[in-house]
């Protein structure tokens, strides 16, 4: 200890006194020395056994890993059942209910009543937290109380209370006193809220914001149906066009073939020959008479010319 610091200290403490020290550690490597240069020294009896107890409890909790950040569980996005462990008559409960009612009223709040200060509060609070472990289907729990003196809030610094809270099977929010008060329950809870109102805000979503999300989805739903219908009708129109095109093409091809055949038939038609002045002679049974021998004198036959048929008779034989 340096003289300048020592002078401010008053009489030296008795041997065996427990003290808090504020000191600067130094390591002298070459001499293998570790030194604490003490700046101030406060007997625990004066500074508060409380503080010492708190530090010990905190160290014990830390040793058991209960303060590890990895332990922190995320809060549910849309809780349906919220447990509130607090005094049923306190301002904290009123604040919490009013915030929840405003932000997200679609919940059931289960109040687990407990004393939060004074004689028996520690046992009471532990019992209430144990009860919390047995409540069915609770999504998140808020533990806390409104502001008060350090003594008023002290039960939330109980190691037993902190351990019981840490053992909760569901995510927990600790909200004790005002913003500046940090208690052991704040450290072991999954979330520390500065005030009970803030705890309620953290516990539930804001329905205005969620309604905006829902409205956005509603717009997307409407738009996507419209575009599906548009796409459907466009596809139908395209199919119709293609169908008409295909059928038109088929008809064209058929027509061309028919025309070609008709032209060939036309060229082969005997009627064409008749038109040039030839005639066909057939007997009564329709046989074509092609020779003089077939056309005996006196034979009745039919003569086909370009525009019709006439009856005829052979009057004389070959001349």
């Amino acid at each position, binding site marked *: 200890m340096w003289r300048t610091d020592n002078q401010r200290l008053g009489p030296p403490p008795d041997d065996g006194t427990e003290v808090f020290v504020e000191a600067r550690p130094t390591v002298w490597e070459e001499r293998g020395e570790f030194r604490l240069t003490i700046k101030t020294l406060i007997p625990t009896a004066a500074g508060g056994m409380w503080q010492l107890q708190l530090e010990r409890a905190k160290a014990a909790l830390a040793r058991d890993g209960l303060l590890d950040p990895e332990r922190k569980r995320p809060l*549910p*996005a*849309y809780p*349906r059942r919220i*447990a509130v462990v607090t005094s*049923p008559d306190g301002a904290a*409960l*009123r604040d919490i*209910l009013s915030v*929840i*009612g405003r932000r997200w*009223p*679609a*919940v*059931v*709040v*289960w*109040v*687990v*009543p407990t004393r939060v200060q004074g004689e028996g509060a520690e046992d009471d609070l532990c019992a209430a937290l144990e*009860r919390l472990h*047995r*409540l*069915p*289907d*609770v999504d998140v729990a808020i533990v806390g109380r409104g502001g008060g003196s350090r003594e008023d809030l002290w039960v939330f610094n109980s190691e037993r209370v902190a351990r019981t809270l840490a053992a909760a*099977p*569901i995510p927990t929010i600790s909200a004790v006193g005002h913003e500046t008060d940090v208690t052991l329950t704040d450290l072991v809870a999954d979330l520390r809220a500065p005030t009970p109102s803030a705890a309620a805000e953290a516990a539930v979503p804001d*329905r205005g914001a*969620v*309604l905006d*999300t*829902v409205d956005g*989805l*509603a717009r*997307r*739903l409407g738009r*996507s*149906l419209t*575009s*599906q*219908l548009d*796409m*459907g009708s466009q596809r139908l129109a395209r199919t119709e066009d293609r169908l008409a095109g295909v059928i038109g093409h088929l008809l064209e091809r058929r027509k061309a073939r028919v025309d070609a055949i008709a032209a060939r038939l036309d060229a082969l038609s005997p009627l064409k020959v008749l038109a040039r002045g030839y005639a066909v002679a057939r007997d009564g049974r329709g046989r074509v008479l092609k020779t003089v021998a077939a056309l005996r004198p006196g034979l009745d036959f039919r003569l086909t010319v370009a525009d019709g048929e006439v009856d005829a008779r052979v009057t004389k034989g070959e001349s």
Partner: protein
Amino acid sequence: MKKERPTFRDELEHLEATVRALEERDIDLDEALKLFEEGVARLKSARSLLQDAEVEVKRVIEQADGTIKTAKLDT
């Protein structure tokens, strides 16, 4: 913890999935209409949950035999 009823998160996720499915290009019209109807029903229930709900407050009481019951709490 068992959950029988779907949570609001489930509802919202279903609604989003429905909208996304409807936004996909490759579905037929029958399916699209079915999705739309489903989405509208979900929207309706989500909106009514948000707009009509009222906080229900109960007090947890432990009985002599250690069982837990709840009672109405007047606030």
